[in-house]
């Protein structure tokens, strides 16, 4: 991970088609070659716009992760009804013996 001082203006200049391919793989999206150039250009355009916040002095500013601070939200430790298994599995593309059915995990893609 890079240091906290890197600016958006600096890193966004580096976004390339190879970066986009890598991000698509991380996001489990099957990006097509004809969309690659367009997606790269659109992402670069957005990141360029986002460099406006480089102008702000953010030293010592506490990151805000939630808008209404609540801590340690617990409920009573009692058994409550849960979702009906048959109803849940009925909504799945494939199910077998009370479980979700999927293709082999270790397949052609490794």
């Amino acid at each position: 991970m890079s240091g906290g001082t890197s600016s958006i203006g600096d890193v966004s200049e580096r976004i390339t088609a190879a970066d986009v391919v890598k991000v698509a793989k991380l996001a489990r999206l099957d990006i097509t070659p004809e969309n690659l150039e367009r997606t790269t250009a659109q992402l670069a355009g957005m990141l360029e716009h986002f460099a406006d916040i480089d102008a702000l002095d953010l030293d010592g500013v506490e990151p805000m992760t939630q808008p209404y601070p609540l801590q340690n939200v617990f409920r009573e430790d009692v058994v409550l009804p849960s979702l009906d298994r048959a109803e849940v599995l009925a909504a799945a593309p494939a199910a077998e013996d009370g479980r979700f059915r999927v293709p082999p995990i270790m397949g052609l893609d490794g």
Partner: protein
Amino acid sequence: MSDTTTADVAPLSAAQIASGVRSGTLKAVDVLEQHLGRIAAREGDVHAFNLVMADEARAAATAIDAAVAAGNDPGPLAGVPLALKDNMCTRGIPTTCSSKILEGWKPPYDATVVTKLAAAGAVTVGKTNLDEFAMGSSTENSAFGPTRNPLDLNRVPGGSSGGSAAAVAAGFASVSLGSDTGGSIRQPAALCGVVGVKPTYGYVSRYGLVAFASSLDQIGPFTGNVEDAALLMDIIGGHDAMDSTSIPEPQPSLMEAITHGVEGMRIGRITDLPRGADPDVVERLELAFEALQAAGATIVDVEVPAFGYGLTAYYLIAPSEASSNLARYDGVRYGMRVDAPDTNTMYSTTREAGFGEEVQRRIMLGTYALSAGYYDAYYGKALKVRRLIADDFDRAYTKADVLLTPTSPTVAFEFGSKGDDPLAMYLCDVYTIPTNLAGHPGMSVPYGTGQHGLPIGVQILAGTLGEPAMFRAGAALERSLA
């Protein structure tokens, strides 16, 4: 608006419908048939709905009339026709988020808001169209085709809750629910000429709302007037053990709040608000300030210096959260699957086929912003900007009780007019986004018309749990037009 199918003179408010049905002077089935009649006449043009639930609605309305006949009270929304944005779970009823990836999926449970509204006697007439997974500002990004603005079919209704706004504006439903992550209730409310409310984050349970950006999403009502919005808020608000981010503090009645005027209230004008609103929008906003002053409020100048950085912070934070939330659509547990010889290939082919272009763009942006080497420069920095914005608002709210801004920089725009540039569409939400980042409430109240005779909304903003003051100002604005 022309209405050729029903003979009703002025549409009744939700409060009037409920009052009439509870007292037996109105039949829920008659109210419903009026609304279904308008749907039959105009839904083909407007396309507000992904699903019209006529049979279920008729059964519910019949049951309500039977309850009244038996001497029972069906509740404060007795017989009120309701539309639900199609990203709220309804047990056994398809919930699509206007995405191919969830087409045909029937949730195994109801959202908390759905349970509460049914218990209050509301009659659900259908599930409304939206930008896929609530990502957009025009409802053009629906996998099932766009919704048209009932006031001008060549123009968008706004978004992402465009179907819910259009349903109320067209008289298909008396009230509806939407969700607002960056303006998705307030902006379409403004463009369709109805009231739209984004409550304080945590005011309304998100249980059963399909997640887009969890730290920003909030459910709220669309209504024809401010009183109906207060009525709905009093019913859907409140703590829910099923949503750990819902606020445990009690919420004062907004129906009570709107009985008070704005005498002595301080209305803030943001002097450093980003420019760019059309002249007709600015003119209506000025008239709104004058109306509140005439009603006894004081206008004060405030500064919110970080307001203009909201767009950047939002478009780093919301896609980051979305990239994580939407990881669950992998072809395993629900929705569609594209078969493949192994799971990894199945994930990527399913997601490529199931998600539309804008959703994929935001997943990519969010994944990039969270990826190793870029996290600090993008996501980490955006969270700090979020703090600056919230702190700036909090300072402004020491001087003012509420703030007034435009809701949308323009009136409803024509289809396709934002072209191929995602940023042009994102700028529609420049005035609504900062509120979501701060977690504060905001509402849009229709305030006259501008270019082409199209409606203009004024946005009222308040601090955390500032709904009573916000609603008082909203009611005063509405009264000033009467």
